[in-house]
C-alpha cells in the first residue's frame, strides 16, 4: 500500500479530511475548471458538511447499523455535480437516503482493505424504493496490492440512468484490521437528452418529456373547431430501467375541450410528472360544451397557464406538471400552490422568434 491514507485515523479524518488533506473528493472522470466564486462555494460546502448531521450519524460505533439522510447541506457541489465525502467506515452496510433523487452515482472507497478479500458492493434503489442495481467495487490500482495484500482505493460506478432514492453500501470483507470511508459523486439533475433548444427546466430538457407534450398536443384535436378539441391526461414515468416513458390517457365519455379525466389502469413506472393540453391560445373564446352559457376567454394571467384545479390536482399527486397550449408550455415545479403559481411557473414559448427554437 503506497498511497497516503487516513484509514488509521479514520474517524477523525472523516471530519477533518478536507482540512488536513486526505484524498480530495475529485470526481473520477471529470476535470472541472472552477471559478473563484465556485471555489468559495466549495469551501462553504466543506464547512457545512463538517457541521452537518451526516458526519455524526454513523460515527462512533463502527460495528453498528448506519443509516443516513444525505441532505443537500452535506453536498459539495460544482454546478449540478455534487459529492458527499467522508461517509465513514462501518462494518455493517451503510444506508444513505437522498431527499431528492440523484443521478449517475459513483461511489469511491478509501481506506485499507485486503486485496484478496471482497471489496463490497453498492446497491441502489429508485425513487419508489425498488432495487434497480447492485454492483461491486473494483480496485483503482491492482498493482498497489504488493506484498502486504492491502490496498486503499476502489470505485463503484453505477450504471442505472434513472433517479436514485437511496443507496446501500456493503463494506469490504473480511473486516478485521481494516476500514474504509466512502465518497459519493452524483448529479443532482437528470442529464439532458435533447440536443437543442435547452431550457432551464430539467424535465423539459428530456426528449421523453418533449415527446409526451407533442403527443398530448397532437391528440387534442387542437386544429379542429373549438368544440371538437379535447383535453387528455398525460404522465411521464421512469420505468424499471431508469428510462423515461410517457402515457396518454383519455376518458372519451367525459373529456371535453376544458377538462379531462383519464388515468392509467396500471403504472408503467414511477410517475415523474403530469400534464395535459389546453387546446387553445390565450384569450381564445372557449366553446359552449365546456359548460358556458356566455362567452368566456381562456385566461393565462391568474395562474400563469394552469387552472386552479390543475394546481390542486398536482399538489395531490406531489408531482411537477406541464400545460401545453397553442402558444406556450407552462412548467410548474413541486410546491406550486394557487397562491404562488404565478411566481413559480416557468413559461416557454413553443416558437421562440428570438432564438428560432421550436418546442413541441
Amino acid at each position, binding site marked *: 500500500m503506497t498511497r497516503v491514507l487516513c484509514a488509521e485515523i479514520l474517524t477523525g479524518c472523516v471530519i477533518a479530511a478536507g482540512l488536513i488533506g486526505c484524498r480530495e473528493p475529485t470526481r473520477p472522470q471529470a476535470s472541472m475548471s472552477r471559478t473563484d466564486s465556485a471555489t468559495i462555494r466549495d469551501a462553504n460546502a466543506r464547512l457545512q458538511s463538517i457541521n452537518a448531521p451526516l458526519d455524526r450519524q454513523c460515527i462512533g460505533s463502527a460495528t453498528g447499523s448506519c443509516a443516513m439522510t444525505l441532505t443537500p447541506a452535506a453536498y459539495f457541489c460544482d454546478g449540478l455535480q455534487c459529492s458527499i465525502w467522508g461517509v465513514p467506515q462501518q462494518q455493517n452496510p451503510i444506508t444513505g437516503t437522498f431527499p431528492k433523487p440523484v443521478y449517475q452515482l459513483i461511489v469511491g472507497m478509501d481506506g485499507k482493505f485486503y486485496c484478496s478479500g471482497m471489496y463490497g458492493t453498492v446497491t441502489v434503489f429508485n425513487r419508489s424504493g425498488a432495487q434497480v442495481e447492485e454492483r461491486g467495487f473494483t480496485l483503482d490500482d491492482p498493482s498497489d496490492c504488493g506484498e502486504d495484500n492491502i490496498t486503499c482505493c476502489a470505485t463503484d460506478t453505477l450504471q442505472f440512468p434513472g433517479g436514485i432514492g437511496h443507496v446501500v453500501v456493503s463494506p469490504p470483507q473480511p473486516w478485521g484490521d481494516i476500514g474504509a470511508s466512502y465518497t459519493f459523486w452524483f448529479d443532482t439533475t437528470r442529464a439532458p437528452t435533447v440536443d437543442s433548444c435547452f431550457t432551464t427546466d430539467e424535465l423539459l430538457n428530456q426528449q421523453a418529456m418533449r415527446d409526451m407534450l407533442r403527443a398530448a398536443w397532437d391528440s387534442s384535436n387542437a386544429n379542429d373547431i373549438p368544440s371538437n378539441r379535447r*383535453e387528455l391526461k398525460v404522465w411521464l414515468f421512469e420505468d424499471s430501467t431508469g428510462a423515461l416513458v410517457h402515457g396518454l390517457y383519455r376518458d372519451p365519455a367525459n373529456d*371535453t*375541450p*376544458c*377538462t*379531462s379525466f383519464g388515468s392509467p389502469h396500471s403504472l408503467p413506472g414511477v410517475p415523474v410528472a403530469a400534464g395535459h393540453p389546453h387546446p387553445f391560445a*390565450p*384569450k381564445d373564446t*372557449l366553446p359552449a360544451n*365546456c*359548460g*358556458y*352559457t*356566455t*362567452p*368566456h*376567454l*381562456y*385566461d393565462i*394571467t*391568474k395562474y400563469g397557464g394552469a*387552472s*386552479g*384545479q*390543475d394546481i390542486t390536482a398536482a399538489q395531490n399527486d406531489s408531482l411537477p406538471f406541464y400545460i401545453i397550449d397553442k402558444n406556450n408550455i407552462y412548467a410548474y415545479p413541486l410546491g406550486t400552490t*394557487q*397562491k404562488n403559481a*404565478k411566481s413559480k411557473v416557468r413559461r416557454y414559448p413553443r416558437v421562440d422568434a428570438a432564438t428560432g427554437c421550436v418546442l413541441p
Partner: protein
Amino acid sequence: MRTPLAVFFLACVLLSGTPLGGEAQTYTCLPDTAEKTQILRDDIVSLVTATDSETVATRSAYQLPAVAASKVTVVTTASVCRKAGAAYHAAVTPPGTPPIARTLVVIKVGTTRYVVLDPTERAGEFENHIVFDSRWNRLIGFS
C-alpha cells in the same frame, strides 16, 4: 285551522321574497383575507397596472381599465354582494335556473367595473370569472 295556517305560510313566503328553502339563494362575499380573494385581487391588480403589450392586450380583451393598484378594492358590502350574486348567477346559468346560495369574490376596479367569481362555479376545470360594468351588465367572462 288548515286554511289560516296555509295563508300564514304563503304570506311569509311572499313577504320574505323567497321561495321555499330561501336560504339557498343568499349571496355573500368572501372577506379580503380569504386566499381566493387575495389571488383574484392580485391578478386584477397585475392586469390593470401592467404596461407590457401582452398584458395590456389581455386587459383590453377583458374590458378592464388601466388604473392604479389602489383603485382595485375588495367588496364586502352586503348590498353590493347581493347585486353581484344575482348578476353573476344570471351570467353563468341558463335563463330560468333557480338561484342558489353563493359566496363570491367581488373586486371593484376603478368606478366602472366589477370582477366577480364564485370559486365553486366551474366550467370544466376552469373557474368562471365575469366582468360587469357599474350597472351590473355582463361584459365578458374569462376562465
